[in-house]
């Protein structure tokens, strides 16, 4: 379970912009405008952002600052956006990508 930190002992509270609704894999969630998609999803207890293109294993954030590209999602039909860098907006439709066909590998399994 993840939760938001509202009373930090040292840091000042952050300015939360307005609450917005968004869709992730067709389900509706709430987050704060301008926060990274990855943070909004984690606050909703969602860690799995995509499934590996070949193995199908679940993947979440790794570096959280744009270097590793592990968190890529489709946003409003645009593929390959990093959830850690993309600010959340009202009404966003976010999709995880999943396994892709591997026809050459499958052909090899039965033919080589």
């Amino acid at each position, binding site marked *: *379970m*993840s*939760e*938001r*930190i*509202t009373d*930090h*002992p*040292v*840091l*000042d509270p*952050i300015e939360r912009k307005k609450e917005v609704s968004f869709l992730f894999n067709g389900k509706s969630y709430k987050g704060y405008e*301008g*926060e*990274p998609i990855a*943070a909004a999803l*984690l*606050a909703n207890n969602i*860690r*799995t*952002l995509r499934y*590996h293109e070949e193995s199908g*294993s*679940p*993947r*979440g*954030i*790794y*570096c*959280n*600052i*744009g*270097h*590793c590209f592990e968190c890529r999602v489709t946003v409003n039909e645009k593929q390959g956006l990093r959830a*850690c*860098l993309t*600010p959340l907006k009202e009404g966003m439709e976010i999709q995880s990508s999943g396994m892709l066909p591997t026809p050459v590998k499958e052909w090899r399994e039965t033919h080589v």
Partner: protein
Amino acid sequence: MYDVIIIGAGPAGLSAAATTANQGLEVLVVDEYMKAGGRLLGQLYEEPDGTYWNGIKESNHLYERANQSGAEIKLGTSILNIEKSGDVWLVYTEKDTYETSHLLLATGAAESPSPVPGWTLPGVMSVGAAQVMTNVHRVKPGKRGVIIGVNPLAAVIASELQMAGVEVTALTLPQMNGLNEEAAHPKQVMNQLLHVAHMAPSALIRQGSKWMKPSIMQDLGITFYPKSGFKMWGIPVHLRKAVTEILGDEKVAAVKLATVKPNGDVIEGTEEIITCDFVCIAGGLYPLTELAAVAGCPFYLVDELGGYVPLHNERMETALDGLYVAGNITGIEGAKVAIAQGVTAGLTMASNHGVQGLKDRIEQSIEEIEQTRDNAPFHFHPDVKKGKQIVQEKWEEMMAAEQPL
């Protein structure tokens, strides 16, 4: 056409922006993150004088200064390529291509990935990721975490997580493999830790670190190192235990922890399961240099600086005309050093652009980098000064080779 483009709105980039804009140059700063500050944003630790170094406040301050100086700052914009065309540097983003005479790479550092079986499970993240989630976005990375990797960055972030109410059950070594030998070797890790022990809040650890300096004491220390670890900020630090695997189906559920010999070998039959819902991997930082490589800068591998660094001189000029570097791209150090380097880079660019009378100020700013380095409460690498010397020597060798006889 800009006079100066700066890639990276962290401490080095923002300080360089304010410096050059204050000299009357037209400056653009570009960063792909949605907030300015870079890695500085997440930082939060107690200074030796008892005050807090608050990365968010420092970032805001640097941003305001750059902004007021007249520099234009574009966030949320990734650089896809840079290339030189005649005397002009072209900077490509997804939408636009910008042109400039002077290009400063202030791209900072990235975390070294340190693979552990199970590390692709959701819930496993770099220790910096947990720091940013917690301090910058105020979302807990989980309820209860284990940090793999015992080093200064891991220790500082562990304390930050705890401050925010996130439980860290242990800092522990990774199991030794072909990639992580030094980071998995109990004695070498302890040796590294001794360099930062004066930062530890416990007088016992501070005292202990003094008599632990001789090598024989380190051997004894690691042999008799308490199996349950010692505590730093109340968090057990294990130098005789290593994570052999991260467990979970769809996400992290636990780690498998085994006792290791002083040389790092796992002692069979000692495995225990520690439940947790997130795991941080702390593999250390390395200079983020892709753009310098794309541009064609000569590099040198300097372990004391954290990895490959583009060759540069004290004025922060690279071997390529009009291309400069500042901050962690030149070696892993604290934000204060990066700020000081940004000033030097900014003055050098202004001077090369034709602003007169900056020679003394540049010299002075170079000295200030050195002083800031000397005053740093700790160094990511204890031999950073040696690393800087190596870069200087390699630079001079290269320049000498280019001189016609």
